[in-house]
């Protein structure tokens, strides 16, 4: 099974360790991981900002890079959601491309969804001593149906217990360029999320999207919380080792 790994631009630039953790998990489930090194961005920033032409160009690039794989997996509900649920909209006027896009969309997965529903991972290599709380990222939850999958996987991690926050499904306020265009509103939403996280007294908030991660971590630190860790679910599941 040849799995194309779409690392996502944010993981690539900000937290490469998440990419390696994801690969370890995929390989532990028997996948043969393929990483096209020309990959950059899925095009979502352009798409959501109304720049359709650039979104189309980047979508085309992703399709060309990954359509030879059995699956495309990304450690992000947002980027995988872009490919699975929005790419077709970009090619409604281009039937030949649309067919290719739809074929790839059907094989595109968010990481935890893939680990649970395709690889059916029985155990995970990670270990975590402490309590975590899980934030459901919007696109993962509402576009990709990711809710039980990360929790099912976290339940397999020795030493880890989950304490739910009161509103795990409420947006953290990231929203891509929204976070910069409407910094004040975005910060308030992030602040609400931090309060909810802190009320659980969990050692870490765990989630599956880097945008939300940077947003929540950035706000926690600015609030003066230097303790609560902010971790990608792949890091927790894979445990720490190589880069």
């Amino acid at each position, binding site marked *: 099974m040849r799995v194309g790994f779409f690392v996502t631009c944010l993981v690539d630039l900000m937290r490469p360790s998440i990419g390696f953790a994801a690969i370890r998990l995929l390989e532990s489930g028997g996948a043969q991981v393929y990483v096209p090194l020309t990959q950059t961005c899925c095009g979502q920033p352009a798409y959501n900002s109304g720049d359709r032409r650039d979104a189309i160009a980047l979508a085309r690039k992703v399709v060309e890079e990954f359509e030879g794989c059995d699956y495309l997996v990304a450690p992000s509900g947002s980027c995988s959601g872009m490919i699975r649920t929005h790419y077709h909209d970009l090619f409604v006027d281009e039937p030949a491309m649309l067919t290719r896009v739809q074929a790839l969309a059907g094989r595109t997965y968010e990481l935890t969804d893939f680990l649970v529903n395709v690889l059916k991972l029985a155990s995970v290599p990670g270990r975590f001593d402490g309590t975590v709380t899980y934030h459901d990222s919007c696109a993962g939850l*509402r576009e990709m149906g990711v809710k039980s999958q990360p929790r099912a996987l976290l339940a397999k991690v020795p030493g880890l217990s989950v304490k739910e926050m009161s509103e795990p499904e409420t947006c953290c306020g990231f929203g891509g360029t929204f976070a910069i265009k409407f910094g004040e509103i975005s910060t308030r939403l992030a602040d609400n999320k931090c309060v909810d996280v802190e009320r659980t007294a969990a050692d870490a908030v765990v989630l599956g999207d880097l945008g939300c991660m940077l947003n929540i971590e950035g706000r926690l630190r600015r609030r003066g919380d230097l303790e609560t860790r902010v971790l990608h679910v792949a890091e927790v599941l894979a445990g720490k080792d190589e880069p």
Partner: protein
Amino acid sequence: MQVASIHFKERAHDKLNDALLQKNLVKFKTKFVAARKNAIVELDDFEGTREAARAIRQRSLDDLDTWIEIFEANAAARGATVLFAQTPEEVNRLVLDIASRHGVRKIIKSKSMVSEESGLDHAIEGAGMTVVETDLGEYILQINDYEAPSHIIGPALHKSIDEVATLFASKHGTPRKDVIEDLCLEARGVLREHYLNADMGISGGNFFVAETGSVVVVTNECNATLATTIPKIHVAISGIEKIVPTLEDVATLMRLLPRSATGQSISNYVDICTGIKGQGEFHGAEHMYFILVDSGRSNVLGSDVREALQCIRCGACMNHCPVYQNIGGHAYGWVYPGPIGSILTPMYVGLENAPDLPQASTMCNQCGVVCPVKIPLPDLQRKLREREFREHLRPWTERAGLKAWAWLAQRPALYAFASRIGVRMLRRWGGADGRIRHLPFGKGWTMGRDMPAPAGRTFRDLYRERETTA
């Protein structure tokens, strides 16, 4: 109503820093979200009902012209007059014409958001007549010097009991009352007299029913029942898109409307007004007028955001919107706030007058998930963003940033080079604790948050290294 949507950011800033409003908003949010959640489980097949409702609304819009003709014929057959207003100004002119024809001096109104679009109350007062709002929320706003509504079904829900108590005591000249029931009774006492001596009643319309020529009005306070039956003249004002083919359709939509709005299985009152009072009948007006308002709706119908017209005005999208929940309705600057308002306002008043509204969304899609008629709200916001991009309605800096990113992302070799340098610089910028406290091109971010510094090397570089050494 004056359009202030161009000042969205400044207004949002004020609202975020209004301590009293923030307290009121927390109360509002918890109440409505929980109420809807409890109410929708009463339906055996909520998702199926939603799909049916969407189909009804879509069918209504597909042949809107035909349904309007059928409605007009059936309403006329029952003695009502159907009028059409192309613009907000025409709404006011038609109402004033009707009033002057019948020698009207006092008008009572049940809630009509469409009449807020044209500032009808001011027009009526300008013509020397008295107008009294009878929906409790609208009444509160009216006696508070016509404060703007902040929500489409709870126009005054930005106010606390305390604020209303103070307002009533000062405007009514009565001893202050602090219990909700007492305040309601006081308003009822004031309004009762107006019902009895008004010459004309104006209502909104949740639905116009084509097969019967009826208007359906949904309320919780009985004020629409009184406003449409006691005065001799009833004028129902609503948008052309509110037409549905049959009463059966109304029954389906009514399974969702109150549940999505306030979490009620059914609203306290549902008035179905059909024709003028017939011989031997007790209720109904002697003269009945319908004003079907376009005011930009046919433009929406022919546009790529047409699905916005499916809206049945339940308010669920704003009740569940994290942005609305934190800034309230006034920040949006016009009649319709929240996610649906971010489509309708630019479409009705011009995108150039509300350029921030389609952008002021995290696209979390909570609105789309709760919408009872399945309007894909974030998709429609995106359509408007595309128009803004095409028509250069956003700041050039924003456009340049996006373009630069997209240009680079299409050139892998250059992207690899630039990102290698970029992450190294930012790593250094973040210092020993890896916290970037100030970003020159990302002030919006760092004004309230740190930017966690990148690890310093890209995944692609590390991966290539690993593969070549392995």
